[in-house]
């Protein structure tokens, strides 16, 4: 297997999951590199590029959840976690995107990962359930509840404006 090719093809996926989940670019890059190194040690066991992608996606999900639990014990604040100064953005789309990303980041760990895998990775609930070792009903309820929370918060913010 061509390891360089695997890194090139999957770096964006692995880094994006980590950065959206942790909201800390430096920590996310470190964790993502670590996951690639883990894969490198198991390279002989990887059968195809698709297998590598699935392995990396699963590994980064679980490592992110573990990392958040560790950080709860020894907090580490990334630049992304610092609230931005309250200025009006010229581009309302960018502002909405940022608001949504923050809302996702504030969801509980499992729900956050489910939302990321659904909307960033475009996985269906069945695949998410397999990846996170979770019953499909739990995945669907996380999605439903998370969307309801975010919708409610967006509506509240609109009213407050």
């Amino acid at each position: 297997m061509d390891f360089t090719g695997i890194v090139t093809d999957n770096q964006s996926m692995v880094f994006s999951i980590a950065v959206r989940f942790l909201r800390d670019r430096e920590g996310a890059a470190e964790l993502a590199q670590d996951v690639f190194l883990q894969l490198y040690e198991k390279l002989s066991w990887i059968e195809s590029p698709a297998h590598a992608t699935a392995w990396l996606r699963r590994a980064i999900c679980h490592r992110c959840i573990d990392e958040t639990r560790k950080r709860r014990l020894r907090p580490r604040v990334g630049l992304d976690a610092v609230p931005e100064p309250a200025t009006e953005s010229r581009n309302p789309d960018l502002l909405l995107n940022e608001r949504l990303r923050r809302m996702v980041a504030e969801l509980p760990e499992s729900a956050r990962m489910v939302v990321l895998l659904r909307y960033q990775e475009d996985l269906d609930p069945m695949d998410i359930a397999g990846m996170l070792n979770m019953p499909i009903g739990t995945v669907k309820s996380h999605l439903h509840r998370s969307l309801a929370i975010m919708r409610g918060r967006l509506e509240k913010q609109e009213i407050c404006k």
Partner: protein
Amino acid sequence: MNLDEELIAALRREAAPENFAAGVLAKTTLAKTPSSRARDWAFRRPAIFALAAVLILALVLPSAIYEYRRQQRGREARDQLIAALSITRVQLQQVQEKIRRNTRHRI
């Protein structure tokens, strides 16, 4: 507003930092590959075998020594018994001889 679409747009994948792949590849030179692990195993194998041999000897040797000593004590006991029996036989023969001589005198 369609929240599903907005989320897809907001959570679009973003590019990894510029030096990300180079960093990973640099770190792989320090990481252990399956082949380097096999090499390590080949280097460590004689030491592991030697250690296993020492452990086996340490387990087997005391019981072998104990068994050897037990057999040696048995052999010594048997020799002592044979010596005692032969002494007894000689003494019995002497006693028998005396008795025979006494009965001849009386007759």
